[in-house]
């Protein structure tokens, strides 16, 4: 099947129900998107599909045919994503970093839809798990982005 990922077209041989995550990681070699739980519990595998955040570990690859998928590898090609990355660095969010690809994707999706989210909207959207406990740093970065912080 034909996939559009990060503005490129890929031909992929995979069963229709293969999770998008494993096509991205193993077939395309884009390992920035992480496997954490396989059950849409943790959000480490978050990617954008037509600008909406989805959890790639439970998204059948056939479901994204004809759609535009964005992974963390292309996040800085997106103006909003670039701001998010800059804020993540500015606020020194990452610790182990394993969940942060997904966190950046979730943040980018929120800000693409709602340029100035309220704290409640941030809390509702930023629900990916982080075992290192970077939640307050994430909130600080999001708050600054919502205030229009320039990198």
């Amino acid at each position, binding site marked *: 099947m034909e996939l559009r990922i990060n503005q490129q077209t890929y031909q992929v041989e995979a*069963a229709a129900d*293969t*999770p998008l995550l*494993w096509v991205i*990681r*193993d*077939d395309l*070699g884009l*390992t*920035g*998107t*992480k*496997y*954490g*739980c*396989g*059950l849409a*519990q*943790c959000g*480490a595998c978050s990617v954008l599909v037509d600008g909406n955040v989805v959890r790639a570990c439970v998204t059948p690859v056939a479901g994204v045919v004809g759609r535009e998928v964005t*992974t*963390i*590898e292309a*996040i*800085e090609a997106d103006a909003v994503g670039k701001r998010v*990355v800059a804020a*993540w*660095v500015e606020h*020194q*969010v*990452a*610790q*182990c*970093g*394993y*969940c*942060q*690809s997904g966190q*950046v994707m979730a943040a980018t999706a929120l800000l693409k839809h709602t340029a100035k989210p309220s704290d409640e909207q941030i*809390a509702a959207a*930023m*629900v*990916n*798990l*982080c*075992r*290192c*406990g*970077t*939640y*307050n*740093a*994430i*909130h600080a970065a999001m708050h600054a982005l919502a205030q229009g912080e320039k990198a």
Partner: protein
Amino acid sequence: MNVPIDTPAALLDLPLGETVNLSRRRFLAGTAVGALVLGFGLPLGGARVQAAAAVERGTQVPAFLEIRPDSSVRLLCPFMEGGQGTYTAMAQIVGEELDADPATFLVDSAPPGETYVVMENGMRITGGSMSVRMSYPTMRRLGALARAMLMQAAAEQWGVPLGELSTEPGKVLHTASGRALTYGELAGRAMDLPVPDPASVKLRDPSQFRWIGKPVRRVDAYDKSTGKAQYTIDIKVDGMLHAAVQHAPRLGMTVGNLRNEEQVKGLPGVHSVHRLPGAVAVVAERWWHAKRAVEALQVDWREPTADSKVRPMPADFSSDAWREHLAAQQGPARDDEREGDIDGALANAKTQVEATYHNQYLNHAQLEPPSALARFNPDGSLEVWLPNQAPDMFRDDIAKRTGLSPAQITLHSPLLGGFFGRHFLYDSANPYPQAIELAKAVGRPVKLIWSREEEFLRDVLRPVAVVKFRAGLDADGLPIALEAVSATEGPTEALAGKQGEQIDPTALEGLSGKAYAIANKRIAQVYVKGPAMLGYWRSVGNSLNDFFYEAFLDELADKGGKDPFELRLHLLRDNPRLTTLLHAVGELSGGWKRGPFTAEDGSKRARGVAMASPFGSQAAVIAEVSIEQGQVKVHDIWQAIDPGSIVNPAIIEAQVNGAVALGLSQTLVEEAVYVDGQPRARNYDLYPILPASRMARVHVRIVESGEKMGGIGEPPLPAVAPAVANAVAQLTGQRIRSLPLSRYTFS
């Protein structure tokens, strides 16, 4: 005397006690570096090991540092980076003395080998919150030695006396002639020079520090915000196959008949099906194929045999029943601390207080599932990529398992996607033995990933304890006697499989070692070997024991009619360091107030206080809580922490946040429950970890007492649970004697 060494053979010919200089050319030669450094000091027989040990720690400059033409500095770090910021701290420490901005550093983990044993205790592990505090002087000296070599190179190149030279970040200067050379320009000459006498270099006056003690930015922040950071699970090599396993439902069971092996072999993408000790595996072209196929395998598991090499999990094991078993233990107990006359003091006390406390099993639940990649090379050597906190121990274990010599094994230690104690050498809880066996069987490199479910099945658990307290108060309501007897098995004695000559410190730390002036005390352990495999979990014994002790101390305060903050100040009256710390956290919180009080939003709230002394540091915490919809809501955590002296206040603040999150997680929601010998939870759906919605605001004050440097990764954790429990008890009137609070009902 120092001699540059270019070949492993030359290394072998060195006389005993020779200071060795691994050549920069050799270092730059990529894979050859690994081989040479790896070989150093290990496979060379007793005499050579002795010789290696005779070299002063952390003086093999070219083995640690590569200065590139653009003057960027690659540091091979003795410690693993798993979020705690050790790569950044090491860049700061080395950079400070080298005179190179930490921002110009690229840091990777060093291979195994005696060369990289830099801690004052002679170990090489990343754990126990030891990395910075145990290697600080050595890593400073390493930077200073490198700077001296660069200056020597400049002196030779310019033909001027060394004394006329100085440095500024990344450059050597000859002020008299106005000349300058970058480190990159000098590195070629400098790194082939002999390493100077370690005693000859002068370290920078701390008052002149530019980077140590400052909130220097993490060296890994950008890569970790853009998906560029590579963890073991991300590594790939040419020709690699993927593998997944299905573990026996209980540890110790073995593989019997595979009822549908032929059918599974025919599933899409399947390369082969394998029987392993206590597991079956499928190797496939894609991990998803391997996982689907291995989960489809129908295995007749056999009960453990008497000669099982692992700790067999009984079919009837339940964590709740085990707690009752611990509570029923009557001894004998071994004393760890005993002062005064505990029995006499208790008998004569005006008031006696007794209470029994317990905690819960926990999983590590780090976000990166364990994986390992193994590749046998044509020359018979083996390369393994794996998450680990102790590369030499893992390398030696692989040698033992495979029969290869350590020199034939190259160990790669990528970034850790969280660890919290997960990546020590746990015999039954690491995927690399399986990956190696599979790679050997299929004759190709194999990357094995444990699914989240397989990880929860084999992860080692944070221990449980049932602690019986007895205490006595005098006529003024002040504690004069305190006894704690813990029925438990510590992680170190669990890994050993037996009780040691001495008490396992990881069983009782946090009950033992408390600073309060209570004249008569006894801290003891009833050793109870259990069926569950145990391991280290961030802050180890302190993670449970400080909860028990500090919550019980609040019970004593209430019984004696004392305010718990004031009582602690009284019991610490002769300890200026902890008195200062307790005042600091009180101030940070706007002045101690216990409540209950009504907050601005109308909610009824209370505060609790607790302290801990883990890993050479001191911590004091105040928590503010309310009850929302029957659950405890933690609004704020104020933490004052005194690690003696510091390297990076920003990373300390981040570590306090992280430790608070894990502390709140174990307090509020987390619990590994076993029923019928199996974990109830195999994923985050039934094993909740703290979500963002239950995180508290965190306020940090760093107190630098100037005492010996302590740890930072773990010390901010243990006082969190008791501070919350004490606040909840004050708010609700309900004593909190167990964790997690999700087992309680609050109205």
